[in-house]
């Protein structure tokens, strides 16, 4: 019994270890760890993925945001100082990693916000947008915002800046020519892509067709294969 007791005392139970960094609340938080001053490379992990962030609670995400924000400020400070001193900033990819993490975190928060609003109100809670025509009769996405309600004829700023809308023969002529220009550009691009694919098939007849199809979805690969342009300079077997 005693032996069992001794064993029990010395057993290390599997416990999830929590790593806690010492919290420093002063201006030195704007600088990297002293061990990383003047080194050539700082080894770091990857950025946070969307799938991982989806598993976290709202309060965890809130905490993580501030950690990432402080990290970004620290990296920007260090980068600025290195640029001032004409030194290479070690591992600049850290900034990209932090920014990617922040983007992913915001995407997850937005997802949750949308789901909540759809459930509660039937609308997604995003900033409303609508497609309108601009002064030249071309379509563009107009992002709506809240404003004090003034009748249009009394809104002097709107009348001065945004009320003009082209119309009549001028607009019709402009749109006709503009559309023709876009059409010709698209047609040229299509032909150019087709020719390029033919050239690729000529040089690399055994290339990965799936990848080719993925990169040039508008090109008819079968047609390109049969084209005269894709035939190599050899006698066909």
């Amino acid at each position, binding site marked *: 019994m005693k032996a069992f007791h001794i064993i029990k005392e010395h057993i290390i139970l599997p416990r999830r270890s929590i790593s806690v960094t010492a919290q420093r609340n002063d201006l030195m938080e704007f600088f990297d760890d002293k061990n990383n*001053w003047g080194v050539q490379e700082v080894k770091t992990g990857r950025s946070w993925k969307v799938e991982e962030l989806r598993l976290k609670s709202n309060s965890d995400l809130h905490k993580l945001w501030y950690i990432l924000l402080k990290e970004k400020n620290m990296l*920007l400070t260090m980068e600025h100082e290195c640029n001032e001193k004409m030194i290479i900033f070690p591992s600049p990819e850290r900034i990209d990693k932090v920014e990617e993490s*922040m983007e992913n975190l915001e995407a997850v*928060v937005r997802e949750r916000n949308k789901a909540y609003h759809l459930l509660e109100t039937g609308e997604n809670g995003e900033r409303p947008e609508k497609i309108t025509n601009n002064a030249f009769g071309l379509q563009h996405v107009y992002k709506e*915002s*809240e404003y004090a309600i003034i009748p249009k004829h009394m809104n002097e700023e709107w009348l001065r800046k945004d009320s003009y809308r082209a119309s009549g023969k001028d607009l019709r002529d402009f749109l006709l020519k503009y559309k023709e220009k876009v059409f010709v550009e698209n047609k040229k691009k299509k032909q150019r892509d087709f020719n390029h694919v033919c050239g690729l098939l000529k040089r690399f007849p055994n290339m990965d067709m799936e990848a080719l199809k993925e990169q040039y979805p508008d090109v008819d690969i079968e047609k390109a294969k049969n084209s005269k342009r894709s035939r190599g300079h050899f006698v066909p077997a």
Partner: protein
Amino acid sequence: MSTRLYPLYQKGGPQLRIFLPNFWLKLIRPVHEQPPNIVQFACSMEMTKHDIKNYLEKIYDVKVAHVRTRIALGKTKRDIVKGYITKDDDVKLAYVTLPKGETFVFPDCAPDQSQQAKDEHDKALNETKKGYQTFLEKNKQRPNMPGWFRV
């Protein structure tokens, strides 16, 4: 406190709260000498003095006595060859005064690496020299023969 669009405040509505501020703030070495209790920052263009004060007090837990800001004009340069003009981005600078009795000294966080770089260069050079010696050693028995030649 952030660049996002928030609902307009209406009387009786809830107080505006910012959960995910996306402003950046970097501590920079002052260009001109400053009193020991003044810290210079570069910040997002949209930040106001109140934003900077709140940012430092709420996120970094640093007490702030006073904030002044200015927008520094980016430098304009003319291309030597082609003659066109380019301009750097403007940047908003903040001069933050710490409370009485507190000082801040900008640390030497990017020490000069020239000696370290020289050491590494010497190391690589020595290794190359050593490699060349082994190459010569290998080809000693084959005079008047190019190094790439093999039977």
